[in-house]
């Protein structure tokens, strides 16, 4: 309790920093803190008289300091000054991108950050881990205290709740992942499904990696230059074939990922039509990432053959992003609720100094009265004196029990300031 006595009334939660919404990438990369920078920041800023508690979060999209401060203006100045000196960037350059949230707004902001509502790609899952790591660093450096501990744990809780209760993390928002999701809608499990990679390219290779992660079967690589094919096949633990063997392999593979530089279709409708009979109509899914396209879109009209080109996948993604944005509204509702609850907790903390003062006043009165009484009753033994002391103590405890509970609980019902004020006046505390 004594820690909290240090003028909790005067402290504020503030969050200061910049993110992808306010600062361009050129600026963010100049300001971004490395892990060493963060450790240094906690050392230096944590020792400033204006700052009680501090956590520093730095990702590629944001650098933010979350603080419990004695003096808002001075604390913000400290942060700016420190960043400017550490990164060798004049304050004037980032001042415009720099935002400061105070009180509820700071709480809301950190909740939204942890829940990925403030991310560039809403719902991306990495941010929660990054926030947790930042908090862990500050606990190791002992720069987080009662308020930040509570706040961060609430933030993790809110993030988890939003992830399970809303759909902000559902559905793919990258081309390669959207393709894999479609694979799953066609094949169910991807276990032992064979894939043919025609050509090469970042997105196509990423899709193959997703397939491997889903325990897909053989990966077959066809490339115009056989050496390149061999190299890729080696990476995916598959095998390389000649480019003109593709038709033959269409008989056995389930998924074709195509990303060649060919000017014309490399797989035509007639090719696939004849193959489908041999395949006994087992489904065949073509993912065409190439521009110009590699796969004849007419193939999509054949039974049990499916073709998605890059535009189709892009449409899927845009729809998914819209879904996530819709879901983020629900997320914000959960955040609002959590902000209110946190405010109530903070207010209940504000009752603590009053309770302490009240207790002190009673103790002082009791002590003075006991002194007087003992003077007149000087024949009392030590045991008897002790018994009287214990009795007085428990008397005070019993008397103060209900008012204490009332003052603490009242924080959760609002209007605590009024009752704290009345209590102070009633008992002449100050």
């Amino acid at each position, binding site marked *: 309790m004594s820690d909290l006595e240090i003028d909790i009334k005067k402290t504020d939660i503030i969050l200061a920093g910049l993110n992808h919404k306010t600062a361009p990438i050129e600026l963010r990369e100049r300001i971004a803190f490395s892990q060493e920078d963060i450790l240094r920041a906690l050392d230096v800023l944590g020792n400033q008289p204006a700052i009680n508690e501090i956590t520093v979060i730095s990702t590629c999209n944001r650098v933010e300091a979350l603080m419990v401060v004695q003096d808002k203006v001075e604390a913000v100045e400290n942060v700016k000054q420190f960043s400017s000196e550490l990164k060798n960037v004049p304050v004037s350059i980032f001042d415009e991108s720099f935002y400061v949230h105070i009180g509820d707004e700071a709480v809301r902001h950190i909740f939204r950050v942890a829940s990925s509502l403030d991310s560039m790609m809403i719902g991306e899952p990495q941010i929660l881990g990054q926030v947790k790591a930042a908090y862990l660093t500050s606990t190791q450096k002992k720069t987080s205290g009662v308020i930040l501990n509570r706040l961060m744990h609430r933030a993790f809780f809110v993030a988890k709740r939003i992830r399970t209760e809303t759909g902000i993390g*559902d*559905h793919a928002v990258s081309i390669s992942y959207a393709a894999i999701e*479609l694979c*799953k*809608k*066609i*094949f*169910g*499990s991807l276990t032992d499904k064979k894939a043919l990679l025609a050509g090469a390219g970042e997105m196509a290779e990423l899709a193959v990696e997703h397939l491997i992660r889903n325990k897909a079967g053989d990966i077959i690589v066809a490339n115009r230059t056989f050496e390149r094919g061999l190299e890729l096949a080696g990476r995916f633990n598959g095998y390389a074939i000649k480019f003109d063997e593709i038709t033959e392999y269409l008989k056995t593979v389930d998924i074709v990922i195509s990303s060649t530089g060919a000017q014309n279709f490399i797989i035509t409708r007639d090719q696939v039509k004849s193959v489908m*009979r041999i*395949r*006994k*109509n*087992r*489904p065949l899914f073509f993912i065409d990432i190439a521009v110009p396209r590699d796969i004849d879109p007419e193939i*999509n009209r054949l*039974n*049990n053959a*499916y073709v*998605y080109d890059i535009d*189709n996948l892009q*449409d*899927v993604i845009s*729809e998914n992003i819209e879904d996530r944005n819709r879901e983020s509204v629900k997320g914000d509702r959960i955040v609002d609720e959590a902000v209110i609850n946190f405010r109530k907790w903070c207010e209940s903390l504000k009752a603590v100094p009053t309770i302490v003062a009240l207790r002190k006043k009673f103790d002082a009165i009791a002590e003075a009265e006991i002194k007087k009484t003992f003077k007149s009753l000087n024949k009392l033994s030590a045991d008897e004196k002790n018994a009287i002391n214990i009795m007085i103590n428990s008397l005070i405890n019993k008397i103060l029990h209900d008012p204490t509970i009332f003052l603490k609980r009242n924080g959760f019902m609002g209007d605590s300031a009024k009752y704290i004020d009345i209590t102070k006046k009633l008992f002449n505390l100050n």
Partner: protein
Amino acid sequence: MNIVILFTILFYLFGTAGYFAYLFLQKNYMQKWGFFFISAGFLCNCLIICFGYIKSGWFPAQNLRETLFIAGWAVSGIFIILHHKFNLRILGIYAAPLVFAVIMAASLIPDSGGAIKDISNSFWLISHILVILSGDAALAMACGAGVFYLIQEHAIKTKKRGFFFKRLPSLELLDSTGYFCIVLGFTFITIGLITGLVYAKVVWGRFWGWDPKEVWSVITWFLYAALLHQRLTVGWRGRKAAIMAIIGFAAVLFTFFGVNFILGGHHEEFTKW
């Protein structure tokens, strides 16, 4: 008896509500409740049949009312089996209202009592009825899986993902569930036809009498036989199989109801009121 029927209807109704809530809100506990209620309804449905047997002393399939109670029992029974085998939750959207409608219809039909013959407790007749109706129930499920397959395939082919895309499972699961149902249903109706033939021989002294129901049963049997043959030889799967499952079930329905209402024949009294 009436209270048991009421509870059966209520359980199936709650099951339907659970599955529809699941369809729209996608909360897992909803389909769990749905499944729980369907299972409870199934048990009550068993009781209806048992009480019917005890009350009359005959296997209760003497009129359309009693036959429909058995049909509902078979549908929910097959659905419970499928649920455990494939965990295809969304099928409840189809099965729950279906079984509710069947039992509701049964309860609305007045209990007229058929002309009971002392042959009605024959082993061949009872197994004929139970097996045929279970087969029909499995084929009904195949039809449902087929409908879902067509919806999902349409969404993937046209690249317009609507309400159902994320709610329906993979094409592969829908196709294999449908296939399993057809194999199961086909096996049952084959056994059912054989027991029916034996029964006819016992009662009428002949295996085959060109009765309309007999004829239509065989037509239905050939439809499914063709579907299975095509699947095994040239791989009729996916869309074609789904469409065939729906056509096949239409034939089943006609054999079950249509023949009695339109064409008459010696099954009349069992399914007429």
